[in-house]
């Protein structure tokens, strides 16, 4: 019965292609067993949290590492991009702002660069310009580090952004090829995505040369390039409402353009979908290097190349896991150290920064680490979207 309905719905969606209905993002794929669930997305804060209200002492790190509060007063601040002159730009979602953090060596000050945007999560620096990508807008601020009042150039028309909002807030970054990489998430929890979605694209910096380079990507909120091979590695969020066990989030490696990463038929390391069933659903799908935990919300990812941390961390990865909502016992809320094997086919995942989650069963947490940035001195910055703050991790032990 359910499958007939689904097929009928698909047929309707297909025949009505000229006027596509937005796919329901929420209730698709919620099994009857979960019908009485009270799980809901976790609440974010939109007001400033002063440093005195951040329980930084609760954080734990391996021996020899230390963490301090580095900047506060950026509600919703998440992805970070650093300019050549040392200013750091942060994107946000709901609150609609982009922040600029200026470090005078002893303290940090914060100002709002632009506001009233629709989820301007994407920020990237390239050739002295700040690129800001909201769901429906692309802005470029030329020479902003030296010219704080510079008026933005509106590049929106060049980028061909599709209209759906859900999962279409963006992480963006320039690759070693000088191109801008942009994800377009599935506009639903689970659905047959319309052709402009569930993919990663790259563009020339001016928005020309659009190219879809990966498909079957549900919702990637973080990627980076391997320091030696130059390959793209990205995190991807698993779907909701298939239970506490998963399907787990993914760490993927893109060895070449044109690969299919499985959504909506194949998740994690070969888990077939519960609603979009296909016996051959995982055929031709590139499976992840590693899974990253059920509903973990794996976000920012970097390869560590600094000289401050002990040698064993060289070229290993750090990944921030913002933490689960679609799980009765909470999971994540940490930064993990991920060490890929030599051939890059599997990886070990170990907790690195923990202590944000106070009671997994009761769902009690205070912070949500979202993105990472390596500083010139090798220290690691971690943004906390919940507290609107940035923490700094340094190595203070003996090497």
């Amino acid at each position, binding site marked *: 019965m359910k499958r007939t309905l689904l097929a009928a719905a698909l047929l309707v969606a297909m025949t009505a292609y000229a006027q596509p*209905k*937005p*796919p*329901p*993002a*929420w*209730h698709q794929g*919620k099994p009857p067993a979960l*019908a*009485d*669930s*009270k*799980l*809901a*997305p976790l*609440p*974010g*804060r*939109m*007001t*400033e949290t002063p440093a005195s209200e951040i329980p930084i002492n609760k954080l734990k790190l391996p021996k020899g590492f230390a963490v301090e509060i580095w900047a506060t007063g950026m*509600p919703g601040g998440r992805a970070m991009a650093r300019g050549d002159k040392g200013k750091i730009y942060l994107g946000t979602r*709901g*609150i*609609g*702002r982009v922040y600029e953090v200026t470090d005078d060596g002893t303290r940090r000050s914060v100002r709002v660069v632009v*506001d*009233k945007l*629709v989820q301007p999560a994407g920020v990237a620096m390239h050739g002295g310009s700040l690129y800001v990508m909201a769901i429906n807008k692309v802005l470029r601020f030329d020479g902003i580090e030296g010219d704080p009042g510079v008026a933005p150039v509106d590049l929106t028309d060049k980028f061909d952004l599709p209209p759906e*909002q*859900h*999962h279409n807030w963006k992480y963006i970054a320039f690759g070693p090829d000088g191109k801008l990489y942009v994800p377009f998430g599935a506009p*639903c929890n689970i659905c047959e995505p319309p052709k402009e979605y569930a993919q990663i694209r790259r563009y020339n910096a001016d928005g020309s040369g659009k190219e879809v380079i990966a498909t079957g990507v549900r919702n990637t909120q973080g990627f980076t390039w391997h320091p030696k091979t130059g390959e793209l590695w990205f995190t991807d969020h698993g779907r909701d409402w298939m239970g506490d066990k998963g399907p787990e989030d993914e760490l993927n490696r893109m060895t070449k353009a044109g690969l299919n990463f499985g959504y909506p038929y194949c998740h994690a390391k070969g888990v077939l979908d519960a609603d979009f069933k296909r016996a051959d659903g995982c055929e031709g799908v590139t499976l992840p290097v590693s899974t990253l935990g059920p509903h973990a919300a794996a976000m920012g990812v970097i390869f560590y190349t600094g000289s401050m941390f002990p040698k064993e961390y060289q070229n290993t990865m750090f990944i921030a896991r913002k933490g689960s909502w679609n799980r009765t016992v909470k999971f994540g809320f940490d930064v993990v150290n991920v060490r890929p094997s030599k051939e890059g086919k599997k990886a070990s995942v170990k907790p690195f920064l923990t202590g944000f989650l106070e009671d997994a069963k009761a769902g009690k947490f205070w912070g949500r680490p979202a993105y990472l940035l390596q500083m010139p001195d090798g220290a690691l910055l971690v943004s906390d979207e919940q507290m609107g703050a940035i923490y700094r991790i340094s190595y203070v032990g003996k090497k």
Partner: protein
Amino acid sequence: MLLRFTGRWAWLTALFVSAAGAQSIPERLAQCAACHGAEGVSAISGTPSLAGQPELFMENQLVLIREGVREVAPAMAAALNGVKDADIRALARHFAALKPPPPAGKPDAGTARRARELSRKAHCGSCHLPDFSGRDQIPRLAGQREEYLLEAMRAYRDNRRSGGDTIMAASLYGIADADLQVLARFLARLP
């Protein structure tokens, strides 16, 4: 002459706005009460009751309105001009502590049945809680003004609620006006 008046008005407005920036919490609350009701229970069509709403929900909405991310009636937005985060938290705390509005009577059996069926299918209660009392960032719907609920739902569904939660909007995609009316009638009559 006209020009001079314009200039004078601009000056007066500036004075009013700067004074607004320096208002005490009780002064602000008196302003809010003019529209939202003395006890946070609104008697004005299109203006929501605030009494008993979750604190974080109001905090977030007040920031979104102040930032111009959620667009509302200009007079409502003006009341938040330049209001600091700390004051926004105090305003939210005040209204959250008030007794929720009384239900607008009892829903008839047909309305209740249909509304529960719709709500079960769209899992409204998973977020808003089964008794629609709301929590954290998710609003209380029980006892809210009927016409306000209806317009709010239409705005989400038709992608007109600027700054709105995208999963919330997606929950209403494809639900017909007649069913939204049933939901609004039902929710306004819940204790």
